[in-house]
C-alpha cells in the first residue's frame, strides 16, 4: 500500500461522506441507521469501560480481607453503580442499539429501519436517561447504594439518591421499548424480495425474538420503578406490610422484567455467534430452523421463570416448585443452540481468527454460566449459594463471558465493514488469550469462594477467604490487560489499518455483498435475494 493511501482518513466513503449537515450535528441528528448504530456503539461501549473501572475498584478493595481502601458506604455505592451501568447502560441497549442498528437493516435488504426518526429518538432517550443516572451520582445525598435491584424496603428508605437513579432507568426503559417496536416492524415490513423468514440471518432472528421481550416486558420495569418513586415520594405503603402492603410483591414485579431482560442481553449474543461460527467453519449452520425457533422458545419460556430469584425470600412453596420446574425447561432450547453450534463445527474447515476465538469462548463460557444457573434454579441447592459469590461468578459467566464476549466478537467481525479498515490479527489474538485466561481466573475463583460461603456485596470478609480473593483480583488485572491490548489494536486498525475489502471473511449474508463502507441507503437498487444466509457457494451475490 502506498503511503499516500495510508494517510487518507479511514472514513473516506459510503455513509461517512457529508450528509448535508456538518460536524457533530451530522451525527447526533442523523436518522441513518448506521450513524445511529455508531452513536450507540460509542456511548454503550464507553459506559462499558466506565463499568470495568468500577469493577476493578471493587476487586481492588476485595484483594485483602479488611481493606482500608474505602468504607462500607463507598463500597455499596460502587457495586450499585457498577451493576446499574453494566446492565442498563451497556448490556441491554448495547447489542440491539449498536450492532442491531448497524447490521440488521442491511441483512434483510432494507434501506433503513421502519421508523428512522423514532430510532434517533430512542438514542436520545438513552442519552437523557444516562445523563440523569450520572447526575444522581454527584448530587443529593450521594450515589444510590441499593444494588442494581433496588429492593424494598431499603430502596424506599435510604436517603441516597435513589429517586433520580430510578428516573434515569425509567427513561432508558422507554428507549428500549421503542427500539423493540422499531425492529419488529422493520423485520416484518421491510424485508427485500426473496428474503423469506427461512432466509433471515440468525442474528436478525435473535433480534426479532429480543424485540418482542423489549416490547412486552419493559413496561413492567417502568411500572415497578414508578412504584418505588410513589413509595419514596408519596409514601403509598404499597410494599410496607404494616400498612397492608407486600414487600415480596416488589420482587415479583422487578423480576417479571429483569429475568426476561437477561434474554434481552444474551439472545442477540447468541445470534452473533450463530452468524460467525458457520463463516469461520466454512460450513452451513447445522439446524437453522431449530436455532431460530429456540430463540422464540427461550423468549416465551424465559418469561415465566422469574421466581427463581426469590427462593429464599419467603415466597410460597408451591411457587418455588413451579418456578424451579419452569427454569429447567428453559435449559432445553438453550442446549439446542449449543449442540447446533458444536455440530456446525464438526468436520468444518475451522479458521481461528479473532471473531471466531471470541465466538468459541462464548460457547464455553456461556455453557458454564448456563449450567451453574441450573444449580441456582434447583430450589434445594440455591438455598446454600443464594447471595454468595457463586451467584456473582455465575452471572458474569453469562453476561460477560456470554453477552460481553459476543459483543467483542461482533466488534471484530463487523466493525471493519463499517470503518473500511481492519486490525492486525496477532495482537487481537494476544488480547483475546489474556482476556480469556484472566476472565476464568477471576470468576472461577469467585464461584469457588461462593461455594465456601463468601457472601456477595460485602466489603470486608473472613480471613479464610483471603487466598482465593487475591487470585481473583490478579485475574481481574490479567483481564484488564487483555482488554487494553484488544482495544488499542482494534481502534488503531479501524482508523489506520489495511483496507478491509468488501468481504474479508467470506460471509454469505447480505452485508458482505455491498461495498465497504456501505453507502447511505445501503443498496443501489433493492436486492432480490436468491439464496440462504449460510450458502457459501454463492458468497457475494445477494
Amino acid at each position, binding site marked *: 500500500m502506498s503511503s499516500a493511501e495510508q494517510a487518507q482518513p479511514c472514513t473516506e466513503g459510503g455513509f461517512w461522506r457529508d450528509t448535508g449537515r456538518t460536524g457533530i450535528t451530522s451525527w447526533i441528528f442523523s436518522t441513518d441507521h448506521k450513524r445511529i448504530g455508531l452513536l450507540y456503539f460509542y456511548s454503550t461501549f464507553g459506559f462499558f469501560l466506565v463499568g470495568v473501572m468500577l469493577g476493578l475498584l471493587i476487586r481492588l478493595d476485595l484483594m485483602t480481607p479488611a481493606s482500608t481502601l474505602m468504607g462500607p458506604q463507598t463500597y455499596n455505592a460502587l457495586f450499585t453503580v457498577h451493576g446499574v451501568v453494566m446492565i442498563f447502560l451497556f448490556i441491554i441497549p448495547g447489542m440491539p442499539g449498536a450492532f442491531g442498528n448497524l447490521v440488521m437493516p442491511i441483512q434483510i435488504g432494507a434501506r433503513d429501519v421502519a421508523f428512522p426518526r423514532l430510532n434517533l429518538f430512542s438514542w436520545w432517550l438513552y442519552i437523557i436517561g444516562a445523563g440523569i443516572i450520572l447526575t444522581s451520582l454527584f448530587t443529593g445525598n450521594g450515589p444510590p447504594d441499593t444494588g442494581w435491584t433496588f429492593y424494598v424496603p431499603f430502596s424506599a428508605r435510604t436517603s441516597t439518591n435513589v429517586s433520580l437513579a430510578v428516573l434515569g432507568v425509567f427513561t432508558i426503559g422507554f428507549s428500549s421499548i421503542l427500539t423493540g417496536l422499531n425492529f419488529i416492524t422493520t423485520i416484518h415490513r421491510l424485508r427485500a424480495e426473496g428474503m423469506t423468514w427461512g432466509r433471515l440471518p440468525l442474528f436478525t432472528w435473535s433480534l426479532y425474538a429480543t424485540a418482542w421481550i423489549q416490547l412486552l416486558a419493559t413496561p413492567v420495569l417502568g411500572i415497578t420503578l414508578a412504584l418505588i418513586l410513589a413509595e419514596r415520594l408519596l409514601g403509598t405503603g404499597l410494599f410496607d406490610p404494616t400498612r397492608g402492603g407486600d414487600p415480596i410483591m416488589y420482587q415479583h414485579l422487578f423480576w417479571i422484567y429483569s429475568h426476561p431482560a437477561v434474554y434481552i442481553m444474551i439472545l442477540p449474543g447468541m445470534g452473533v455467534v450463530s452468524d460467525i461460527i458457520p463463516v469461520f467453519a466454512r460450513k452451513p449452520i447445522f439446524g437453522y430452523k431449530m436455532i431460530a425457533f429456540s430463540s422464540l422458545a427461550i423468549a416465551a419460556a424465559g418469561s415465566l421463570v422469574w421466581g427463581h430469584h426469590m427462593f429464599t425470600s419467603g415466597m410460597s412453596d*408451591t411457587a418455588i416448585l413451579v418456578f424451579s420446574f419452569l427454569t429447567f425447561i428453559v435449559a432445553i432450547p438453550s442446549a439446542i443452540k449449543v449442540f447446533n453450534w458444536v455440530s456446525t463445527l464438526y468436520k468444518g474447515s475451522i479458521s481461528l481468527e479473532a471473531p471466531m476465538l471470541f465466538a468459541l469462548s462464548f460457547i464455553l463460557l456461556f455453557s458454564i454460566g448456563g449450567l451453574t444457573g441450573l444449580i441456582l434454579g434447583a430450589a434445594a441447592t440455591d438455598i446454600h449459594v443464594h447471595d454468595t459469590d457463586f451467584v456473582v461468578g455465575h452471572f458474569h459467566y453469562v453476561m460477560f463471558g456470554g453477552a460481553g464476549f459476543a459483543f467483542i466478537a461482533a466488534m471484530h467481525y463487523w466493525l471493519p465493514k463499517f470503518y473500511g479498515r481492519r486490525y492486525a490479527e496477532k495482537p487481537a489474538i494476544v488480547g483475546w488469550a489474556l482476556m480469556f485466561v484472566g476472565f476464568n481466573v477471576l470468576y472461577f475463583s469467585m464461584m469457588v469462594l461462593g461455594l465456601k460461603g463468601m457472601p456477595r456485596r460485602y466489603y470486608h470478609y473472613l480471613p479464610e477467604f483471603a487466598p482465593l480473593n487475591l487470585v481473583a483480583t490478579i485475574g481481574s488485572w490479567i483481564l484488564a490487560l487483555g482488554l487494553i491490548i484488544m482495544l488499542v489494536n482494534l481502534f488503531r486498525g479501524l482508523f489506520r489499518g489495511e483496507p478491509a475489502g468488501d468481504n474479508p471473511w467470506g460471509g454469505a449474508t447480505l452485508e458482505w455483498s455491498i461495498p465497504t463502507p456501505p453507502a447511505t441507503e445501503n443498496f443501489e437498487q433493492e436486492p432480490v435475494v436468491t439464496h440462504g444466509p449460510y450458502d457459501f457457494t454463492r458468497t457475494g451475490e445477494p
Partner: protein
Amino acid sequence: MTHEQTPHILSYGKLTLVWLTLLALTALTVWVAHHNVGIGHVWGSLAIACLKSGLVIAFFMHMKYEGRLLRWLLFTALAILAIFIGFTFFDVLYR
C-alpha cells in the same frame, strides 16, 4: 388497514354515562376495601378493576369501534399481562 374513515365521535350523553358508571364502580371499590371479605376481597377488587378498564378501553379509547387487528394486538398484550399476574398467584394464594 381495516380502519374505516368515519370519525366515530361519541355523544356527550354517552360519555357522561360511562363516566358516572366509572365513578360508581370506584365507590364500590372503596366499599369493598372497607369490608373484610377474605380472599374474595382480592377477586372482587380485580373484577371491578377489569370492568372499569374495559369501559375506558371500549369507549374513551374507542376500541369498540376499531378494526380486528388492533383488537387482537390489545388482547394479546392483555393476555400476557394476565399470565404474568396469574403466575404471582402461585405465591399469593399458597403462602
